[in-house]
């Protein structure tokens, strides 16, 4: 079963966050956005400025796992909301 593990770092507080979600629990648009982020193989450029969040998204399925680093402005909002602050 395909699932996504989302980890977050950065922000003014420097706190980490984490969340997981099964691909089946995502709506089609968000699933497509996420899968598109794994295409290309090129490192995604970070957001301009400072104190931005940076997300690491790991896709796990039967064939293994793949991880991509995603700047905050490219993360689907619905997915950022499943991330829980760790403190």
């Amino acid at each position: 079963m395909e699932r996504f593990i989302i980890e977050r770092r950065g922000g003014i507080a420097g706190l980490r966050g984490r969340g997981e979600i099964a691909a089946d629990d995502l709506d089609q648009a968000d699933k497509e956005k996420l899968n598109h982020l794994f295409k290309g193989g090129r490192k995604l450029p970070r957001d301009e400025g400072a104190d931005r969040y940076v997300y690491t998204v790991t896709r796990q399925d039967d064939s293994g796992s793949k991880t991509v680093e995603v700047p905050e402005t490219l993360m689907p909002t619905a997915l950022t909301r499943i991330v829980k602050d760790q403190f």
Partner: protein
Amino acid sequence: MLLRCGCCIIPKDVLERLSRDPTLPAKTRASLESTAAQEPIWRRLRAAQDRATQARLFTLESAPTLAKVPTVTVNDCQNTTSLPGTPVPNPGSSRDRTVKRAFDTTTSVVDFYKTGFGRNSIDDLGMTLMSSVHYGIDYNNAFWNGVHMTYGDGDGQLFLDFTRSNDVVAHELTHGVTQYTSGFVYTNEAGGLNESMSDVFGSMFRQWQKNQTFSRADWLIGADIVGPAARARGYKCLRDLSDPGGKHCLSPQPFHYEDYIPGGDPHDNSGIPNSAFYLAAKAIGGRSWEKAGKVWYAALTSKRATKNMKFKAFARLTRQAAKTLFPTDPAIYSAIDEAWTGVGVP
């Protein structure tokens, strides 16, 4: 604005909408989709913007001033992530406390930089200062996006409204000052310096607003935005310049160079230069912005400050600035020299 969204020269939502347009060839649509995420041109534009910003350091004398007193504006994102949001008319008179706080505090930071360091806004040319508030839903963060400051409301548990902490407002605005001066990149030691400048000037602003001397200052970052859930666990702040490794900090930091974290988040390694500033201000005494602050400002804005600077080189700049600014008071140099030595940066 070219890099308004921080991503693409064509707004990302336009690219995405066009990528779903069935009247366009499949190949075109695929290309648009890819552009939204991975077009390298805007990366080159960003690099060019950085170079242009830095090049201004050498042409400042001939650059016209926009305003003697910069305009301060506030936009309301209305709990969306659309930037910059909707302009709020007369933000200084707004009944929305967040809007009014963002306006009042930013205006005060402008005054701090002007009276304390002779600086006219972020770019020293009277640049209009924009703040966006009510960003996102329960958004537990604030940031500088290369163009303006942005504040979340917090979730009310871990964090409160980010405009509530005056040092947070000054912290974000100072990221702009750094961008327009040294240009410290956001990685490695330069990243730690970038973050440290924001904490140091953020803390100084907080002290300046209350006209506090060293001993009366709390030296805390984010003390006024820590929410009840965090307080219940004993947290009092994001960071503490007087005790970077303290358990009362949501983000404890290293405070000696031997504990520098290679590849670490800039908010981690900033603890080392933060501690150097605190120790220098402690040794000098009085109001931190009057002597230690002036030395730090001189180093930050020095033409010899480079974007990939390491702690040691920045420390050297502060030592030199101490001698230049206070030639008849060797105690200032000694305080700064010993502060850096104390954190392991000779």
